[in-house]
């Protein structure tokens, strides 16, 4: 059982001139949660689509894509039969109500009719949508639509769940509900693959992440470990350059790294006390001392902000 559920080697995908995925390799273990982090246009969605043949990968002799030991381009149906997909856009069927949406998808997944009703009842309960079963899709809130889309993807009891930005644009409460659901699915043995913009999301539920930029892998590992090994523990944000000049000498005297390529100055260091001392010299409200996060890591590696839209 040490075989990975997904094995991707040297994957390329381009749209004309644009290279969306550039020589990507990774492996996903059973019952783990694997995350792809990166800005818009980093190639996350395209990568997901190649796994269930919604996108055709570039022809390349070095490329190998295996999902459940099968090639998506040859055994699309077998893979999709045991996979659930939550796309970036909800794409629920607006012309059908909640329960009929699930009903139609039960059929598409070949769930026998007798089992479908029971499964739908379970899922509505699991996703806390029981009261909404006869509602029109257009009457649902954003969070409900997202939960329904997730419920829909679970109708065939998938062993692999692919989620493209599951919580983008949702309020923190709904986000936590969804994270909890994903955690319990993982406990049941479901392998989860997700993309996200949010470092918090990656931290909360991912066992392993890949940070992507411009179609390629920038870094891979456990989110907490990546931070620990690659970036200073704390960061002092100074909001104006003029204040930074005041403390510049002091900063240079400690073990710190300064990033001044943006509007605000970022002083990274693992020496919390020294950063605190420096912050004392700054006017209140003009600085922010915090723990560093994946965004800082991304910034360090690529020199760009994570949420820059591209």
């Amino acid at each position, binding site marked *: 059982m040490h075989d990975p559920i997904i094995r991707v080697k040297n994957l390329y995908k381009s749209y004309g001139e644009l290279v969306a995925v550039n020589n990507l390799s990774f492996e996903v273990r059973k019952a783990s949660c694997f995350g792809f982090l990166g800005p818009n246009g980093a190639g996350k969605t395209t990568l997901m689509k190649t796994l269930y043949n919604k996108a*055709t990968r570039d022809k390349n002799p070095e490329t190998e894509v295996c999902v459940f030991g099968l090639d998506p381009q040859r055994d699309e149906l077998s893979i999709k039969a045991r996979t659930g997909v939550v796309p970036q856009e909800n*794409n629920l069927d607006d*012309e059908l109500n909640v329960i009929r949406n699930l009903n139609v998808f039960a059929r598409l997944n070949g769930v026998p009719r007798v089992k479908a009703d029971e499964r739908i009842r379970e899922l509505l309960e699991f996703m806390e949508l029981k009261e909404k079963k006869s509602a029109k899709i257009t009457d649902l809130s954003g969070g409900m639509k997202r939960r329904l889309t997730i419920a829909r993807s679970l109708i065939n009891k998938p062993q692999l769940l692919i989620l493209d930005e599951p919580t983008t644009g949702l309020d923190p409460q709904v986000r936590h509900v969804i994270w909890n659901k994903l955690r319990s699915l993982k406990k049941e043995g479901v392998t989860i693959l997700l993309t996200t913009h949010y470092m918090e999301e990656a931290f909360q539920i991912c066992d392993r992440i890949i940070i992507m930029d411009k179609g390629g892998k920038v870094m891979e590992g456990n989110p907490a470990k990546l931070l620990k090994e690659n970036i200073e523990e704390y960061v002092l944000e100074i909001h104006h350059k003029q204040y930074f000049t005041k403390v510049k000498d002091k900063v240079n005297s400690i073990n710190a790294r300064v990033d001044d390529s943006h509007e605000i100055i970022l002083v990274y260091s693992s020496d919390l006390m020294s950063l605190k001392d420096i912050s004392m010299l700054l006017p209140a409200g003009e600085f922010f001392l915090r723990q560093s996060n994946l965004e800082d890591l991304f910034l360090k590696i690529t020199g760009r902000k994570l949420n820059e839209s591209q």
Partner: protein
Amino acid sequence: MKASSIIYPNLFNRLFSVWFRHYRVYTSHLISNGLPPFIEPLLFLVAIGLGLGNHIGIMQGMPYIEFLATGILLTSAMYTSAFECSYGTFIRLEYEKVYDGMLATPITVNDLIIGEIIWAGTKGFFFSFCVLIVVWVMGVLPIGIIALAPILGFFTGLMFAVMSLLITAFVKTINHFNFYFTGVLSPMFFFCGVVFPITDLPSFIQPVSYIFPLTHSVILVRALATGIFEQNMIWSIIYIAVFIPVVGWFSIQALKKRLID
């Protein structure tokens, strides 16, 4: 894990589940979707058939209302199928993104499109059947072999489904369908023998009319109405039997490019 241990729905169930999605949507609005197919032919036959028909008298050996009634048995199938596979398909493709959701389930693009074509054929059958009921209730046509008309409606639906899908595959904005409806379907309505016989067209235009699918459906339905079958009608059957798979194949190839990145 062995590939053989993986079960996915068989071809019939895959096609049926696509068909079922469309059926579910259609029957969700039973009154607004189910009434017009009866009302429209009724209006048409009363206004044009009876009203105008009084001034025309006999056409091709039958009262004008009878002549017209046999024609619109199939134009109703043509329009419903063409709408379904142009505006309907485009909206599902571009606005609602319904197909993206469906393609994440164990069905292929081929299943998706063929299921849709069969659904359009089903609508053609249903719409022809509705006209037939109206025609029978009005006493325009006797109950007889014309009862087979909905089967022709089914095949007419298939022809216009594959043709409309092919066009949809190349359409960039929904407004482009105006050209299709005004430039392709309306001429067929008027010049394929529905409202007057093809033989009344100038002789050099007559062969052109045989290019269009509706002409062949109409030739066959008139035979059902009159009970007069001629040997050369076999060509119309061959036309339909070839048109559907050939144009269907091209439409699948063209749509695949839009559905798979």
